[in-house]
């Protein structure tokens, strides 16, 4: 099989039930920031949910970008590695530098209905093979002089997807 260059996307959902400390901080800060930023689009306080704002107010589509400003500070704490996704040895290994923040839904008066997602996009990987439900990958940026490549086995799992694929040019 020809080796292909892929990037993976992990869509991390964060809501009121998220148990981990990092997730809770992101949850609280994005909710606070949404309430702050939404005031521009909700001047008379008529709307209560994010869905209403999105449908009724021109420009409210900027909210995910505006709110994502508070997420930015938490990303360096991940030390450049996508959270939650581990290889078959149980280690974090997926490097990222790109992300996209989404507001799934929210309620300006009920924080329990606040739900967001952070999409993490991995750096380029070389996809060598598939073993059962495991992808055999190595870092595309890695350089090997001996022809030996260090690899990871990644389990295919919910919320993890192949985001892009690059076929090698035809010979």
């Amino acid at each position, binding site marked *: 099989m020809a080796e292909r260059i892929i990037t993976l996307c992990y869509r991390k959902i964060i809501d009121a039930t998220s148990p981990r*400390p990092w997730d809770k*901080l992101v949850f609280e800060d994005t909710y606070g920031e949404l309430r*702050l930023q939404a005031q*521009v689009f909700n001047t008379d306080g008529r709307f209560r949910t994010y869905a209403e704002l999105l449908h009724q107010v021109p420009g409210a589509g900027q909210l995910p*970008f505006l709110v994502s400003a508070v997420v930015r500070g938490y990303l360096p704490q991940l030390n450049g590695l996508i959270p939650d996704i581990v290889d078959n040895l149980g280690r974090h290994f997926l490097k990222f530098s*790109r*992300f996209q923040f989404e507001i799934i839904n929210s309620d300006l008066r009920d924080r329990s209905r606040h739900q967001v997602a952070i999409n993490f996009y991995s750096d380029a990987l070389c996809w060598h093979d598939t073993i059962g439900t495991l992808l055999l990958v190595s870092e595309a940026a890695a350089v090997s002089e001996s022809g030996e490549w260090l690899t990871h086995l990644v389990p295919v799992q919910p919320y993890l997807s192949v985001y892009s694929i690059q076929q090698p040019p035809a010979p």
Partner: protein
Amino acid sequence: MERKNFLKSLFVGAVSAPAVLAACSKDDADTATPATTGGTTGGTTAGSCTVAPTETEGPFPTKVPSSYVRSDIRDDRTGYKLTATITLMNSNASCAALAGALVDIWHCDKDGNYSEYGGSGMQSTNYQSVHFLRGRQTTNASGQVQFTTIFPGWYSGRATHIHVHVYSATGISLKVTQIAFPEGSGTAVAAVGGYSKGMSGYTYNAQDNVFSDGVAQELATVTGNTTDGFQLNISFAVPA
């Protein structure tokens, strides 16, 4: 499992950190920078017990008061340095200095582009630079905030400007406004010359659809030069 146990072992530190940091979250911008530590800095032996080595902070989180809080908002953007000082007064309290207010500013880069809005909003972005030329500060006891940024460029239809949004300490929106720049010979706008775009097609304040009704209340004082950078000062009142 490994990670779960690792996190569990850090649990005490992880939950106490937010409380401590939250207590000083009103301090100033310096608290916004997430603490990062390098690798192992070495364990030491004291008597019969060994002090644990200091390790990299790893995956456990620390509370960022608001990562948007920062005084240098340049990120990867280049241009003539601009130090912007904004002083706020409370029009509901005899124009006394307004302390503790949140001040957001944003403006375009030297080529007239804003962070994100230039491209498709649905694209993924590099987290290091996604919010260039945007930031938040909390006013000090004198009602002042200061940002380090670059002199804004311009885009079609608008005079040079900086957007400002002021919130009360509790996050209530108090004012959305824009800062205008003096123009004409000898001004900073003339010295910068619109960067690489030049001034052909530039919209002056009198023709600007936001500023054309008069800029007296919004006009900043801008001094300096292209070698040493520029200083912008403006003060205005908001009802708090």
